[in-house]
């Protein structure tokens, strides 16, 4: 497979905060590659550097063989971007937004008009093409932005949190689009997300990123296999006693996070009754108990020691601290 994106020890510092810390990876052509991590992990900063919006502090990267520092225009022509925050002109119609983009990328009139019609059909906005974007729902705007990002036939498409803030139905719909796109147009897609299911469903490979570093990189299946066996999650008001009550050789790991205790073990089906019996003997109440195959959530947990939700809360706290310090 030929390389679409090559990243070599890319780093970005903001003052004394290292947002992206010497990351390196390669993405093959036609791949859907996911950057998975909590808020503030450095995903958006990485995309901003790869799309030439932000100058890296050190390190290099190439997009379709073009150096992001030496030939910014070359990179810009090769990529399409859907930003995390909306970037449409709300006072223009869907068609006009597309047309503006096509002109900026210097597409000839016939090509432009033909592609706009084609893409608006793809994202099912043809019947709304002459409506002002202000009247569009969140999902429609997202679809329009994706269509716009494809207008100049980029070889690489960047999607920054493509389904953030969308309802589950629209999200599912968008996932289908993205899958179809990758298959039909054979373009390389790099997306950031902090939704585990999204990464699992869409991506050929995933880089889990935390505190600006890549802590794991593989296919979703292999990442989940690396945990091994099964996962039992117990909800209980007395989580602190559970670990001691369950000490047994067949348990690989046991951790408590809030009201949840997460146990990783082999052949959970054979041990589940033992677990319930032991907890009953110790008079530890069980709110719920579930057995499942490891998910990316469990992978994230095993690499970082925290759930992605806890990390999100951490980064919000860190931000608050940061701003408090800046004020004083």
């Amino acid at each position, binding site marked *: 497979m030929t390389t679409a994106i090559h990243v070599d020890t890319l780093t970005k510092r903001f003052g004394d905060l290292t947002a992206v810390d010497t990351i390196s990876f390669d993405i093959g052509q036609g791949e859907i590659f996911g950057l998975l991590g909590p808020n503030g992990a450095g995903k958006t900063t990485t995309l901003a550097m790869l*799309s*030439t*919006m932000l100058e890296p502090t050190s390190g290099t990267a190439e997009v379709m063989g073009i150096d992001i520092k030496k030939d910014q*225009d070359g990179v*810009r*022509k090769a990529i399409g*971007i859907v*930003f995390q*925050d*909306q*970037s*449409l*002109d*709300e*006072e*223009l119609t869907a068609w*006009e937004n597309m047309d*503006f*983009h096509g*002109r*900026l*990328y*210097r597409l000839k009139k016939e090509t432009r008009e033909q592609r706009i019609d084609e893409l608006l059909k793809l994202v099912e906005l043809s019947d709304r093409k002459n409506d002002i974007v202000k009247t569009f729902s969140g999902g429609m705007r997202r679809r329009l932005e994706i269509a*716009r990002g494809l207008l100049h036939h980029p070889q690489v498409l960047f999607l920054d949190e493509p389904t953030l803030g969308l309802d589950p139905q629209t999200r599912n719909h968008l996932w289908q689009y993205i899958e179809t796109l990758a298959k039909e147009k054979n373009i390389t897609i790099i997306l950031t997300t902090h939704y585990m299911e999204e990464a699992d469903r869409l991506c050929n490979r995933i880089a889990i990123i935390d505190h600006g570093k890549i802590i794991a990189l593989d296919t979703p299946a292999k990442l989940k296999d690396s945990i091994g066996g099964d996962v039992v999650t117990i909800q209980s008001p007395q989580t602190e006693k559970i670990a001691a009550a369950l000490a047994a050789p067949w348990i690989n790991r046991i951790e408590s996070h809030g009201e949840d205790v997460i146990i990783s073990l082999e052949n959970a089906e054979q041990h589940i009754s033992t677990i319930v019996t032991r907890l009953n003997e110790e008079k530890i109440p069980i709110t719920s108990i579930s057995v499942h195959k490891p998910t990316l959530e469990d992978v994230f947990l095993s690499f970082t020691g925290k759930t992605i939700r806890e990390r999100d809360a951490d980064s919000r706290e860190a931000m608050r601290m940061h701003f408090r310090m800046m004020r004083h």
Partner: protein
Amino acid sequence: MEIIYTIWLRSMKRFVRSKSRIVGSIAMPLFLLVFLGFGLNSVVSTTSLGQEYILFLVPGMVAMSVLFTSVFSGIQIIWDKQFGFLKETLVAPVTRLEIMLGQTAGGATTAVIQGIILMVLAVLLGLKITNPVGFCIALGFMVLVGIAFTAFGIAIASRMEDMTGFQLIMNFVIFPIFGLSGALFPISSLPAWLVPITLLDPLTYGVEGIRYGLSGVSQINPVVCAAVIAGFAVAMTAIGAYLFRKISV
């Protein structure tokens, strides 16, 4: 050129659709023209002006509507920044200079159209445009004022994070530029110490130029006016382009 045209085209589409903004920004100079014009017409001695006060006021109000519209058009880049649209243009394979020139062209056109609307309304109040050459001269000055102050707005917007400073700029920069320009009174009637300050105000030359075009008389030589306002427009465009190059989103 294509890119400049594209960005200009967007400004025009937005302008045509924003009826309330068109009416809003024409209202202030029109009201001033009517209130001050009719209110002071009989009070102000017309001998030193060579014409009725209300007609003396027309070029000043035209310049005012061009000034406010163009500064506002330039500053609108902040909206684009906040609503994310600026990113879409910045990440395209186009230069910042092209984007800036497109914005300037769009803002200046909008401002000149506003000025023309006001001029047409002034005809209803007694303005007579008999000399087509004079009209073209006035138009030329309006274009220069429009370019200069749109670029000025872009320069300010490039350094501002959000619209919170907008009021400050309007009250402490734009309004004094307007007030000192001789839009409301003849420069010759000012106390001697105030005259040099008026002559430092670039808009003075714009107002006088438009006045020359519309009435055939001005207190500053129209060639000097043209040179000063054109020089100012070039300088502002250069400064605006320089600051816009460093804008970050």
